[in-house]
Structures are given as structure tokens and as C-alpha cells.
């Protein structure tokens, strides 16, 4: 199965997460990594599966590389019926009200256009001392195994 991994990032953490996931999945699947800032929303492919990774910036805002993607979803309004994705949010629960909000903004926009989120919502919490980069890889593998 083809798996597209899209990331929205401010300081590059989401890109590393995308690479970690791709490396882990590549033995069994064809993977493709793309920055949301380079993604044309008209090319979102209903025949492949998407893993979305998005961080949160400032007071619950989208990171800069996710902003054009989000704006294009709102303005172009592609019909995403049948489009399937999983969502992984990177955030810090010390920001009580806005924790992982960036990913939720993308998630809500995709859902509103008819897309279907698959599996457990992944979250990486920078304030959780036990969390490592492995978390995203483990999460992605369990998502993909259960598609």
C-alpha cells in the first residue's frame, strides 16, 4: 500500500518524525514524505493512505509550514469523501488550553471536507518525560497494521 506522510512543522521536528515513520514502514510499504507547504490540496489521493503530522505553534496556532495547506483546504474545498488519513499531533501539555491544537485544526478541516480519520489520534507530548521519538513510530505501525 502506498503511504503518504505529510508534515506541518515550525522547527523541523515533524519532518524528523515523518522520516522516522517512513524508515520504519518502508520495508513493507511504499512511502512518500512531503511538507504540507509543498502539497497541492487538489492532489490528495483517495487511493493511498495518509499519515498527517502537525505541531502547534504559539498560542494554539498552526506551524508556518502547515498554514498554506490549511488555507488551501478552506479556499479550494476539495471533496475528500473517501480520503483516509491518520493524525499525529506534536505538542506540549504545559500549554493547557492549546495542547496539540495545530493538528486538530488540520483534522477538523479534513473532516469537514468529508475525509475519514482512521485509528487512534496520535499525540506526542513534550512535557511527558517518558515520551521518546519511538512513540510516533510505534503509533504509525499500529495504525498501518490495522487499516
Amino acid at each position, binding site marked *: 500500500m502506498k503511504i503518504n506522510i505529510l508534515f506541518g*512543522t*515550525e*522547527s*523541523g*521536528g515533524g*519532518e*524528523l518524525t515523518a522520516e522516522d515513520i517512513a524508515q520504519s514502514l518502508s520495508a513493507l510499504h511504499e512511502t512518500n514524505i512531503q511538507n504540507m507547504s509543498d502539497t497541492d490540496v487538489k492532489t490528495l489521493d483517495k487511493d493511498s493512505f495518509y499519515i498527517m503530522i502537525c505541531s502547534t505553534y504559539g498560542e494554539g496556532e498552526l506551524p508556518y*509550514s502547515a498554514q498554506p495547506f490549511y488555507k488551501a483546504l478552506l479556499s479550494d474545498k476539495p471533496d475528500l469523501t473517501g480520503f483516509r488519513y491518520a493524525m499525529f499531533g506534536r505538542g506540549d501539555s*504545559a*500549554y*493547557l*488550553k492549546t495542547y496539540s491544537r495545530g493538528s486538530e485544526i488540520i483534522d477538523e478541516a479534513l473532516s469537514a471536507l468529508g475525509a475519514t480519520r482512521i485509528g487512534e489520534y496520535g499525540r506526542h507530548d513534550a*512535557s511527558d*518525560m517518558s515520551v521518546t521519538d519511538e512513540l510516533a513510530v510505534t503509533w504509525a505501525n499500529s495504525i498501518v497494521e490495522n487499516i
Partner: protein
Amino acid sequence: MSILIIGGSLSGLRAAERLRSEGWAGAITVVSAESQMPYNRPPLSKELLWGEDSPSDLEFELSPLVADVQWKLGVSATALNLDEKRVELSNGETLTYEGLVIATGVKSRRLNAPGPQGGRVILRTLDDAVTLKDQLKPGLKLVILGAGFIGCEVASTARKLGCEVDVVAMDEVAMQIPLGKMVGAEIQRRHESEGVRFHMGVSIAELQGEGKVQEVVLTDGRKLQADLVLETIGSIPNTEWLANNNLDLSNGVLCDEYLRAGGTTGVVAVGDVARFANPLFDAPPLRIEHWQTAIDTANFGARTLLHDLGHASDELKPISVMPWFWSDQGETRMSSFGMLGLANRQEVLEGELSGECAVGYFREDVPVGVVLVGLKEKSARYKRWLQKSRDEYHAGQGAS
């Protein structure tokens, strides 16, 4: 059972939150010399000064976890009796504890030079920042003593507000102590292009004026006109209250590898005041005055405390931190990972020093840090590079 946290800034707050999130149900009291609830300090030299943030924007949101924590604001600790687990406060109260968190931070070092006291200011607290903000008007002649983070950030902000800015410092170039000469010289060049005047290799010998400073005399005899002098010449740990307990208080509180003050069970030091060895960088005990390290040490210290109080059964791991900071100076955003002060060589790894770049800091060819000027989207990658380099270095040492 009660835990006493002395110091109510970022580190004290995060320690309280961590104690609660790890299940500590006993009483927690935070004693803070400041009269405000905990607030975020980095904007004091930037967003607050140029008016983008108001003081209320800086207040930390309080987690419901710490809703029942008792706060004693505007009160400082005056003495500790470690044997009797007792802290005396400036309001005459005496508090006892089972667990103690030392989070008293630092205060600004002051210039010892003759002359009027009026017109000499520092920047450490919200009150300091509000006072400074009220004076930074177009045309104000501001002399900043010291060219570190605070000095350079305020220089940039003050130019933005239309002030005339002279920076006076003993170092050869701006930001030399935190960043070294190569990057520091480039940062200075950028500030100069924004109109900041630097007077390096000198200090202020004397202030002149009637009741209020009007002129400063530099140690080389030159004179600068000044309406206001901002002293940013480093900090002094707030440890006076810890005296007479056989603790090593030379430059902060010397901690063991679990952040216990002097190895004392049930007593930890966190934040700017804590001095500890950092095995990730083979660093001797040092204080690390970074925002993120205040959080990291608070989390770590809270766990040690819970362990010591018999509340957590996990075996403790020695502390190991990846120091990290950022600094916004005009159009230049810098960030850094590691312990740059350990380096004896610097090398541009990517980009151009005059533009956006990544600079590696090496000690005997082993990476000890990295500074990014711009290149924000690369910061996670360089952080991982540094972590991996250190891990490989330590693995190699173990093998040899």
C-alpha cells in the same frame, strides 16, 4: 506530609505541577519573593518592552493540578535549618517541611561605580521591565552595560523604539560569553547595522550627574551621554538564606547527580540556582540559566523528591540535560543546543555566517553544541545530530 518550594517562578511552578502529576497528594506551599503569580520572563526584554504583550499576557496559565497549592507571595526565605527541616520567612513565619525544593533563582549583579544612583536600572523582574518600558521613548540616550542576552535583546528593542543605544562591555565582541567570538562578532555587526554603538573592552568607571546620571565615564576615559544606564552584567544566585548548612554555595547550590542539594535526602535545587554536572556533555557542575533547563530540572528534581519521600519506587537515573535556548535580536532569531562554553573550536556547518547558518561547536573535534542563526526549520535536525554525536562519542569511550 508537606513539600515546601522556595521560589515562585517558572521552575517553582513546574516543580509543583510535576509533584501533583506524579501523584503527590500532600500539602505543597510555594514561597515567592515576587508579589505576582509566576510569569514568563523571556518577553521582558522583547514583546513586553515594545508593547506587543501586556503584563497579564505573561502570566502562566495555572493547571487545575495546582489549584490547591498554597502561595505565599511577596515573602522571601531568610534562613534554612537543614537538620531541623525548617525555613524562616521574611514575614516572621517559620515553616517546616518533609521535602524542600530550592528554586530561588538569581538576581542581577550590580555595577560598583561611584556617582548618582538615579537613572541606573536592571532588568530581571516584571516590575523592572515595566519601569524600563516607561522610559524607552524616542530620543532617549540609553547606555547598556554588558553585551550578553539581556543587553543585546534590549539594545535591539530600544532601537526599535527610537532610542539612541550605546553598549559598553569588557568582552571583545557582543555575545562573546554565550556564543564565542566568531558568532558574537557577526551578531555585533548586525546590531551595528541597526545603529547600536558598541564600546568593547571597557567598562564604566564612573557615573556623573546631579542626583541622576547624565554621563558615564568609561574605563579608558571616554565619556558617553546617558539618560538611562541599564546594567546587564550577569547574575548572582539567591543562596544567602541557605548559609550555615554545610552546603557548597559557591556559584549556586552544588547538587549531586539527582539534583539533591549537597546530596541531602529530600532536598533538591532546580532552575537557575542549581549547579550540577551534566554527563551528556561531560560537563563539570555548572549552572545553566536557560528557560528550558528551568523546566527540565524542575521535572527531574520533583521526581527525586518523590523518590526520597518514599512516594515513587522507580529507580532514579542521574540527570542529563540537553541545554537549549533561543534569542530574538531584531531580525535575527538564534537558537542553540548543547553547552557552547565547553568548545574550543567553531565551524560553519551550513549556510553563510552573514546570512542564515548553522555553526557547530567542538571540543577536541567532538561536538558540544550548535547555534542556528535563522534556519529555524533545521533546529530539530541539529538537535538530533548533537544528541547522536554525544551518544556515539560516549559509546566509543565505553568501547575503548
